[in-house]
């Protein structure tokens, strides 16, 4: 019994050590939203008051890898969400990426969040671009 417990513990530790390594972040050329998903409009686009909720959701679900300001943590190989390569993507594309994730590259699926909450996160991602631009102007 004790031997079996030790064996199970070592197997879990080996899983952790070997399989939880993330690969270096690179824009995955195969992570493409289908055209019908990419063309979807954000139903909250005309509701700027929903950004605050999006910020709260971002801090709960995204900062672990993307950082407080969305700049992306190097050790997590996570994207800088303020970059044009991200901000030029359509709302529908960002929504699709949040929904599906890219599990083989370390980005989990957030389909467990209600649809409107995922759109709130997209809304907040757009505000990261604005705040990053205003900071650049001030500098």
């Amino acid at each position, binding site marked *: *019994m004790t031997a*079996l*417990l030790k064996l*199970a513990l070592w197997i*879990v*530790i080996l*899983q*952790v*050590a070997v*399989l*939880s*390594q*993330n690969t270096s972040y690179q824009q995955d050329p195969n992570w493409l939203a289908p055209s019908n998903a990419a063309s979807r409009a954000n139903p909250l686009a005309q509701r700027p*008051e*929903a*950004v*605050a*909720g*999006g*910020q*709260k*959701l971002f801090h*709960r*679900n995204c*900062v*672990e890898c993307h950082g407080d300001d969305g700049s992306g943590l190097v*050790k*997590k190989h996570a994207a800088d969400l303020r970059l044009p390569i991200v901000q030029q993507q359509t709302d529908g594309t960002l929504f699709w990426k949040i*929904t*599906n*994730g*890219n*599990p*083989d590259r*370390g*980005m*989990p*699926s957030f*389909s*467990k*969040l*209600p*649809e*409107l*909450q995922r759109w*709130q996160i997209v809304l907040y991602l757009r505000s990261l671009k604005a705040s990053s631009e205003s900071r650049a102007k001030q500098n």
Partner: protein
Amino acid sequence: MRRLAVAFFLLILGMGVGMAQESPYIVTYDHHLEEPGNLEIETYTTMGIPRSNQSFYAAPWMEIEYGVTGRWTSEFYLEGQGTAGDSAVFTGWRWENRCRPLKREHWINPVLYLEYENTSEASRIQKEIVGGAPDVESPNSDLQSTKNHELEGKLILSSTVHDWNIAGNFITEKNLSRGEGFEFGYAVGFSRPLATLASGASCRFCRENFIAGVEFYGGLGSTEDGVSVHDTAHYVAPVLSWQVSENASIHFSPGIALTGQGSPVLIRFGYSYEVRGFGSKLSQWLGGKH
């Protein structure tokens, strides 16, 4: 072993915590796996309200769930039970693995589940019900001496439809210790958050922090006694989960028996606590790069 346990808890204390929307189900599985590198520590209890010839029991269990990759979650259980007027016993351990074969979200999302159980007949957590009904009448001294090595497989099918989660599990279990046949069971669940738009305020009692639903579960007989619902236990159980803080949630579910088998009421409740970034911290601790 003691040093390892101390290091484990120090690791948890020094770690950032985060929140994810937790599934409210206690028996049914949906297709959402643990996020990679996150560790979830959960403790649950099943309390059986007795019929006239039964005794009250409480069966607590602890789960340690880890997101190995984005498509693979591994979970380790320790369980026990105490019966009024009888005894309290450790009933064994389980190791389960869930794997998502498909990379993207689909209309129906399959997950494959495989579990090894090393438990005694005294196990009463009833994390799933297979075959007929669990023996909740025999004394622990009789049940505890019978050890079971079992393999359990589940096909989990789960779908998100307009913010409703609909999940169905088909369960099959084989006892490797004895020449029993295969036992079968099922679990089906429906759930939805009470609010789908997040408020800007940081609040504990906001509707968005609650998910409500209902699950049905029961046995479907065995290849030995015949695959049917005759003489099997079936329950209907409302479920409610409450995200009480950024990293913790509480779950509650009263299960009502639909047949005369097993306990007439199963009260289940639990607490889960999520630790983000556990994998990278542990990897650092073991001398890895991350």
